[in-house]
């Protein structure tokens, strides 16, 4: 708590906000090694957008091979940027194809979606929404960002080492990932592991910070059940992170030992390489151990990426429906239920792995049950829209897309929760479609919604709504054209992670669908440049935003945009919950959390709105 005290005791804390520059801070201190949670959040935003582009580019290369197998990478995919080790003569080769989808997923999961959901929104929103001047541990917070940078660099560096980057899938199933000879990837796979170890430390630093800040630094009157839902969601997510990341780190540690010190945690005895006994490993390990460890982390990880998105969506739906969120406590309980159940469903990734089938049944039931809190959330979102005054702003459109796309992603999850159906669709494109409906249709739409919603608070300007709408509609259409047909491919038996589906006669006739998906994916990919362009154009030319352009209730909208270091001139006092929209207690259709209410009107409003 020492650093907290330091921030609070800062002598000029009361003079130096209001969005004015701090004359005594150098450029480096203000923008690079900043301790300000908002700057750190924005740093995470730019790094996540950068890796979103990298990951997207790798995805387009993957799609290029599937849509147009064996054809040279076209100029508009920047084939000249592709290292010779990835595609000699611009034609993608099988081992490099494996590399491409491995690194696509790795970048998207660990370096794009996670930093966006947690690094950006967690950092930017938590202190502002709970009425704190900064995070509990600002230095730790800065380190959290600056550790994610070397992690990203290490991952990028793996493209330039002998043998290329990791190619065993983002799940890195052992023993494929545990012995360099099985993939031909040596240093690259080690860098993958080291990078994720470093990133894990960064995530844990962030998680500790979020939890401490939320528990200890809420403004007077900001009870837990008056906290905005994004903060609640990130709070629960931070707990998941704190518990899940160490498991991944441990697993990767063991994997690296298998690779470099020739231990055999994941390597059984008697393996062969090209028909000869595998040298250097005594064996005695268990390949399924890796899967248990990985998915024990990996399934909570999925919720780490989606829970903040749910919080953001809830916030935005309430603001633009001008209505209280339907079932505020039910929303919190369902998030908590998802977080809890998320720990006991990991085995559903392993139904076909050789794990005891009885265990499969158990995991099937727990997985089925986790659909319930997700359903509650969808129904509550619909309830929020009911009777509202719905404004179709860009954040709202993206949040609505989240609701509908997450519904599809959630429902398609029931197919693979059913063990016998999973026996067919496991490791097919059905799974690929499902995960993209959840992570792109879900998390990323919520990311777009959140960035456009809080952009005015970050930079004091609005994002251009026309470009925003163009970007939204194109993304929404191309997204569905890209990922919906993947379900059809999966139903037809199309395995995932195959370099050339034409190798199988039972898949060759699906080529038109693959080509269609690729064309849609290219359009989807290039559409994202519109978002990036909008971001940068609006930074300079966007309409000036006042303190509260969306007429919103939560505390971040009570301070100037952009907000200065220290956030609040006077620590606010909170009088009511975050979603008192269209309340009879005020003549406006919103009621900021720090605005007291005339006791007479409060009496009048008693009994209204609660049933």
């Amino acid at each position, binding site marked *: 708590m020492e650093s907290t005290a330091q921030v609070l005791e800062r002598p000029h804390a009361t003079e130096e906000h209001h969005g004015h520059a701090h004359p005594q801070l150098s450029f480096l201190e203000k923008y690079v090694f900043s301790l300000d949670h908002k700057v750190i959040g924005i740093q995470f935003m730019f790094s996540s957008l950068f890796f979103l582009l990298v990951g997207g580019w790798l995805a387009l290369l993957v799609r290029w091979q599937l849509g147009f197998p064996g054809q040279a990478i076209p100029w508009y995919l920047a084939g000249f940027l592709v290292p010779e080790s990835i595609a000699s003569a611009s034609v993608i080769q099988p081992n490099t194809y494996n590399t491409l989808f491995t690194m696509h997923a790795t970048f998207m999961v660990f370096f794009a979606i996670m930093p966006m959901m947690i690094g950006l929104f967690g950092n930017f929103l938590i202190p502002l929404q709970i009425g704190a001047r900064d995070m509990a541990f600002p230095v730790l917070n800065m380190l959290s960002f600056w550790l994610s940078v070397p992690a990203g660099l290490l991952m990028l560096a793996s493209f330039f080492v002998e043998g290329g980057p990791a190619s065993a899938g983002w799940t890195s199933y052992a023993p*494929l990932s545990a012995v360099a000879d099985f993939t031909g990837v040596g240093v690259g796979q080690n860098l993958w592991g080291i990078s994720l170890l470093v990133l894990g430390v960064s995530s844990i630093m962030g998680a500790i910070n979020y939890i401490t800040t939320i528990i200890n630094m809420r403004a007077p009157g900001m009870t837990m059940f008056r906290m905005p839902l994004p903060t609640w969601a990130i709070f629960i997510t931070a707990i998941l992170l704190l518990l899940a990341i160490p498991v991944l780190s441990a697993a990767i540690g063991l994997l690296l030992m298998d690779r470099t010190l020739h231990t055999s945690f994941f390597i059984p005895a008697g393996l062969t390489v090209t028909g000869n006994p595998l040298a250097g490993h005594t064996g005695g390990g268990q390949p399924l151990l890796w899967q248990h460890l990985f998915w024990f982390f990996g399934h909570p990880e999925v919720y780490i990426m989606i829970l903040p998105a749910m919080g953001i969506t809830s916030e935005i739906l309430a603001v633009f429906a001008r209505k209280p969120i339907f079932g505020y406590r039910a929303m919190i309980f369902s998030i908590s239920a998802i977080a809890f159940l998320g720990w006991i469903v990991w085995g559903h990734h392993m139904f076909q792995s050789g794990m005891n089938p009885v265990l499969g049944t158990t995991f099937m039931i727990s997985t089925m049950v986790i659909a319930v809190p997700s359903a509650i959330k969808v129904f509550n979102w619909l309830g929020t829209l009911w009777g509202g005054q*719905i*404004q179709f702003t860009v954040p709202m459109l993206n949040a609505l897309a989240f609701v509908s796309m997450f*519904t599809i992603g959630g429902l398609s999850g029931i197919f693979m929760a059913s*063990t016998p159906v999973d026996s067919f669709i496991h490791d097919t494109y059905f799974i690929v479609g499902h995960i993209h409906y959840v992570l792109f249709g879900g998390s990323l739409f919520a990311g777009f919604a959140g960035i456009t919603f809080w952009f005015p608070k970050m930079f004091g300007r609005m994002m251009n709504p026309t470009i925003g709408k163009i970007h939204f509609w194109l993304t929404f259409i191309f997204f569905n054209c890209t990922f919906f047909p993947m379900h059809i491919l999966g139903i037809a038996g199309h395995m995932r992670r195959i370099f050339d589906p034409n190798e199988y006669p039972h898949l060759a006739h699906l080529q038109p669908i693959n080509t269609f998906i690729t064309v849609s994916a290219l359009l989807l990919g290039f559409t994202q440049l519109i978002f990036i362009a909008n971001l940068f154009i609006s930074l300079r030319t966007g309409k000036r935003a006042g303190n509260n352009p969306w007429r919103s209730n939560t505390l971040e909208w009570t301070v100037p945009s952009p907000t200065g270091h220290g956030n609040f001139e006077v620590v606010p006092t909170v009088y009511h919950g975050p979603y008192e929209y269209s309340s009879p207690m005020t003549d406006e259709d919103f009621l900021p959390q720090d605005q007291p209410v005339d006791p007479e009107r409060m009496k009048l409003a008693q009994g209204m709105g609660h049933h």
Partner: protein
Amino acid sequence: MINRIRAYSIAIAGFLLGSAGTALAQGSKVVARYHRYWLPDQATAIAGKVDDMFNLILWITSVVFVLVAVVLVYFLIRYRARPGGKAIFYHGNTRLEIIWTVIPALIVIALGFLSKDLWSQIKQQFPAENDALVIDVRPRQFQWDIRYAGADGKFNTPDDITTINQLHVPAGKNVLIKLTAQDVIHSFFVPEFRVKQDAVPGMVTKTWFNVPKPGHFEIACAELCGLGHYRMRGYLTVDTQADFDAWYSKQQSEKAAQLAPPPVAPAAPTGGSTTDSALIPPKGDTATHGTVTGDSAGAKKTDTATGK
């Protein structure tokens, strides 16, 4: 402004209704024409049951999706912002919350119990070994090493019949596949059977099937196993019992021919153990015969790993 909003709402409505309609249509018989873009043929009784389960879930999820989509679109149009309009002030309804918690819970738990029996048929109720053709399948990068017990009915004896990527089974008979990978994890997948089973090094996993009619199928590797994963393809031929017997005895006689003339020392062990795997290269010294022993020792090691 209002017109624009209306236009947007209609566009959203149109898209959501469209996709809902597509989802429903997929479940119905209309798609029969587009069969090749749908589930593959059903080659086993299990495949039919898996498809029934699939279709049941498809119907339930389609109905839920259409309900959600219709309600969503209706709300978006009905409750779009109007000048001077005021949203109702409403925080929630506990009874509704309970209803929409309990109903989905009942549905998914029912689905769970419905799936349980079929799952057990696929992965737990294996045919007895004396009532089934038992085949050892030992995938490696990037091929399916297939092993029949041969004349003596025992595995890992010199008369075992080994093939690469060619799996022959008789129609109408239970076939029990025992899987052990030799290097990394592979997965035995025949789309027409709707069944997938990973082959893991160091342990034996099992899968079974009974194909009533002769036909040709493909064994696809469904677990990423390296650069040749995409073409790790096996050929599964389901023959009539007579055709299968003919094929099997041909293999047996070929095997017998290989084993029969006991030639000079170096050849005999080689013939038995190297048809499906390459030799270890000599170490560079003159101990040439040592390498042959080394190879059969290596083969034995793999055998013990299968637990037989």
